[in-house]
């Protein structure tokens, strides 16, 4: 019964390998990649107070127009919102995927959402994971639309250079500046319920 002998030997070897690998597994530690996230509240609070945590829509627009290197614009909203409108060169990464997303330490990351709240939360997450060049877009898509794409360009404004600059940026992105004459003085912008 040589076949039986040989197969018994093979089985014993397989069992030994399995038991060996299993035993080693106990002492080997975790098979998961370690995501060490640490929130240094004091440090983060300082950054928030010095307003170094966010950018305004106009600032972001300048960065894009200048062609700032290693800039990554991240949309943290759901795919339907992203499909319907997203900032130029924006990529979509959901909040819960931020921990596993691959960012270079030298990249400048700007998060945005509809109104800025979710993006601000994402900012905390990425800072906790150790990324330093992280910002969020202060007023979100709404501010982008209001100030970059369709800014109100007042004709009687004292600082006409600023008005010209706003109009120029707007046209660069294919937006349409509105003259203040066409916007009633007491008009309040419609804020969608977004985050």
């Amino acid at each position: 019964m040589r076949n039986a002998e040989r197969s018994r030997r093979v089985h014993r070897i397989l069992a030994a390998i399995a038991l060996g690998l299993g035993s080693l597994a106990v002492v080997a530690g975790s098979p998961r990649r370690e995501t060490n996230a640490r929130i240094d509240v004091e440090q983060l609070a300082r950054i928030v107070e010095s307003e170094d945590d966010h950018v305004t829509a106009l600032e972001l627009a300048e960065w894009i127009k200048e062609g700032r290197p290693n800039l990554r614009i991240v949309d943290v909203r759901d795919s339907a919102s992203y499909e319907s409108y997203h900032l130029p060169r924006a990529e979509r990464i959901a909040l819960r995927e931020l921990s596993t997303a691959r960012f270079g330490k030298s990249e400048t990351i700007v998060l945005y959402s509809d109104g800025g709240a979710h993006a601000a939360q994402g900012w905390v997450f990425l800072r906790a994971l150790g990324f330093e060049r992280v910002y969020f877009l202060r007023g979100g898509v709404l501010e982008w639309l209001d100030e970059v794409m369709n800014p109100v360009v007042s004709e009687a404004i004292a600082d006409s250079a600023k008005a010209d600059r706003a109009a120029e940026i707007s046209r660069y992105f294919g937006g349409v500046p509105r003259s203040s004459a066409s916007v009633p003085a007491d008009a309040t912008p419609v804020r969608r319920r977004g985050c």
Partner: protein
Amino acid sequence: MTTAALPSGIERATDRIGSTARPYSNPYLAGIGLGLVLLAAFVVMGRGLGASGAFASAAAAASVTAAPDVARESEFFARYLSPRGKPQLDWLLVELIGVTLGGFVSALLAGRLRRAVERGPRITDAARLRLAFGGGTIMGLGALLARGCTSGQALTGGALLSVGSWLFIGAAFAAAYATAPLLRRAWT
């Protein structure tokens, strides 16, 4: 077709009709092969297998073709259809087609292709086919509730240590062993 189990665990497939069928391979080696294939799926795709999922997407496609309004009502089928309610070519469905091809080629090369109805000696072909269909229907219900079957829950979920999958394994084996005595006439 009968199989005789030898104490050492080697199986031999002996075909009374007389064709030259090769014996089955060592179950442990075959199992290791299956495990490596599953591992390859994890590594390449980040997901495992799941035969019943393929059936579900096929059923979704069929229901859409046959009775679109009813199909759209079902929250279950909605998952397998595109946002506009069209059937989609599903990874699992293609995988199951592969399973069929692989089984065919293996049997072809081993001389095990044979048109037959496998059953115990005490029941008829017709009765066996009725049991096969009925058993399949019951498995369909079970697999839907459990969100998987032996490949999706037991193998995939089992290898990934999912609690629900191990519960499924235990429940399925226990139920099968409990049911088997009632079916001796079909198999022995």
